[in-house]
């Protein structure tokens, strides 16, 4: 333990705050509004957008959009995009971009399919190789960006083209490889039993509450100012209610013909996603690596002078991004029961970038969270799912989706300007 000047002089150990709960809650709320005014809007626009879109589509198409079966569809459609977006958060935090994430997913899906279906490998060895392929793509991109200083836009645009070629070369044009492995198919096509669904709810809510309470306790033990406990507990409550609503919704029968095949319970992909969000959030917010990612995105020169190996952080982020994209590719293969040269193509990448940015991750680097990918991914999924129910015209669908992405970027840019204005 090193001693600082301050510790020895021992001056001014902060007094624990003794304000009444009401006063601190009020100051917490006013702090929050000050943050909003300062341009730090976080995921708020995405949450409001999600609610507004759901209300809009439900009102316009009550019998096709707001059905239990369609809610499950929505998760199915968004899962891969959400995973690619979670990976993109790491890359965007650096202030970089990965345009090849969609085809990284596709390439990994192709490798998975070839190894399982054509070579007869077990699902887990094939999946590990597919994920390693993703990591290798990220390593290559990261090294080119970090060591040679090529803009990530160019490197990943090159990878975007080249990986399409790789996919075609492996599959052969027009070919489709079916996926028959039970385990891989289960990820996107099965659901937990209603009991297990509630068990998941208990684990998540109790786990989150414990993290919140232990955090408050250790701050109090260290004599640090502890704000009102009402606000964190309110967050636990909100999580409990929202996740509870999801479980209630999915635990109802959603099969069109229940006698033939019953469909009940939360889809398996939900706990899988939750597990990834927890682990990745832990990495970003509780480890020194995560702190260094934010530092490099905020001010790379300051990070370098503080002794952080900036290149290593960059390469690691590209590897994490591509590995998560590869996982998204496995989800695409599972969802479609097959892999083709167009897997991971079309709007996959744009949806993923849109998800991260709509969720509140900044395109300018240094600002963003893993959970943004979930919130933004759900908004994107609602649009992608709801629009075709309203209009069959794909020209209108394209234009509206493009405008939504642009809107998210505008919010990002404006909040950044706002922060610059109010910063001083």
């Amino acid at each position, binding site marked *: 333990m*090193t*001693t*600082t*000047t*301050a*510790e*020895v*002089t*021992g*001056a*001014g*150990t*902060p007094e624990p705050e003794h304000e009444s709960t009401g006063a601190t809650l009020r100051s917490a709320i006013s702090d929050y509004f000050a943050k909003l005014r*300062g341009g730090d809007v976080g995921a708020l626009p995405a949450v409001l957008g999600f609610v507004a879109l759901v209300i809009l589509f439900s009102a316009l198409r009550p019998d096709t959009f707001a059905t239990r079966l369609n809610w499950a569809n929505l998760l199915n459609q968004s899962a891969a995009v959400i995973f690619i977006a979670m990976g993109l958060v790491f890359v965007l935090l650096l202030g970089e971009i990965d345009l090849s994430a969609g085809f990284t997913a596709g390439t990994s899906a192709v490798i998975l399919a070839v190894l399982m279906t054509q070579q007869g490998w077990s699902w887990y060895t094939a999946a590990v190789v597919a994920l390693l392929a993703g990591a290798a793509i990220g390593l290559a991109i990261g090294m080119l960006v970090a060591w040679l200083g090529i803009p990530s836009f160019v490197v990943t645009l090159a990878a975007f083209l080249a990986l399409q070629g790789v996919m075609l070369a492996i599959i052969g044009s027009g070919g489709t490889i079916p996926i028959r492995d039970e385990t891989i198919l289960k990820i996107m096509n099965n659901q937990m039993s209603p009991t297990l669904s509630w068990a998941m709810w208990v684990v998540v809510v109790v786990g989150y509450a414990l993290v919140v309470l232990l955090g408050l306790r*250790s*701050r109090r*033990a*260290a*004599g*640090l*100012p502890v704000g009102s406990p009402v606000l964190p507990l309110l967050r636990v409550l909100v999580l409990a209610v929202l996740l509870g609503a999801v479980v209630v919704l999915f635990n109802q029968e959603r099969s069109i013909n229940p006698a033939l095949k019953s469909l009940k319970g939360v889809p398996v992909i939900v706990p899988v996603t939750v597990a990834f969000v927890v682990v990745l959030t*832990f990495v970003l917010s*509780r*480890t*020194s690596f995560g*702190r*260094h990612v*934010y*530092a490099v*995105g*905020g*001010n790379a*020169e*300051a*990070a370098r*002078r*503080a*002794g*952080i190996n900036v290149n290593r952080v960059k390469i690691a982020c590209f590897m994490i991004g591509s590995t998560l994209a590869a996982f998204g590719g496995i989800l695409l293969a599972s969802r479609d029961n097959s892999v083709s040269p167009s897997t991971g193509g079309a709007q996959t990448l744009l949806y993923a970038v849109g998800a991260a940015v709509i969720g509140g991750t900044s395109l300018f680097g*240094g*600002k963003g969270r893993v959970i943004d990918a979930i919130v933004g991914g759900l908004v994107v999924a609602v649009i992608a799912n709801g629009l075709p129910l309203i209009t069959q015209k794909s020209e209108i669908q394209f234009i509206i989706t493009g405008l939504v992405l642009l809107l998210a970027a505008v919010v990002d840019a404006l909040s950044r300007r706002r*922060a610059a204005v*109010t*910063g*001083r």
Partner: protein
Amino acid sequence: MTTDAATASGLSPTLAENEPLLSLRGINKSFGVIHVLKDVDFDCYAGKVTALVGDNGAGKSTLIKGIAGIYPFDSGSYVFQGEEVHVHSPKAASALGIEVVYQDLALCDNLDVVHNMFLGRELKTGLTLDETTMERRATETLSGLSVRTLKSVRTQVSRLSGGQRQTVAIARAVLWNSKLVILDEPTAALGVAQTEQVLQLVRRLADSGLGVILISHNMNDVMQVSDTIAALYLGQLVAHVRAQDVNNSQVVELITAGRSGDLGLPPEAAKEAVA
């Protein structure tokens, strides 16, 4: 306060009084054919503010960067706390207890005060960051410097004023049991009130037993806060005087002409230096 802090920074009171904390002798540094530092002798004492003045291109930055280990000097002796040392990297300088606060501060706007103060040297318990200890030590360091302008150490740096940022950068420099803090133009971008705050902070650093080297172009700041003034003129250290022995215009003469009355270079040497 002074004795406590002197003990904390590892100095016995006698050493702090008599022997220089940092002593450079016969320092030379060239970049290619340009001879930037010429036989520079420079001393800096614990508990004192040493102002380093000189015009642009006089070699202030080169001297500072050499002390901080960004590049080594070509020749000369570098004695720190009575021992000859070789500082070939910023890490080596940090290990000795030498910290530099550069003019651009090198803060991450998107991180809060605590995160910035511990950037690159985070405290950990196992895998996870030890946020409570870091926050406690940051708070203690700031209050040890009598900093009262920060509302919360969890404020993002982007929300701080220029003076507050400077404060955070300085607090980061003294957090690590440092013995010598080098400040590069700490008041250049500040308003009147904030300049005053930062100068008071600089004074408190020295009063708490640290050696402080202050680079500044502002004569008012130099005269107000420094104990001794070292003037660089075209790569030569022409004078190192007590601040109370000189006035404003003498220092300006030393900076611009290399001499002022009996101080500085002899007249013919001053002419040679230009040629």
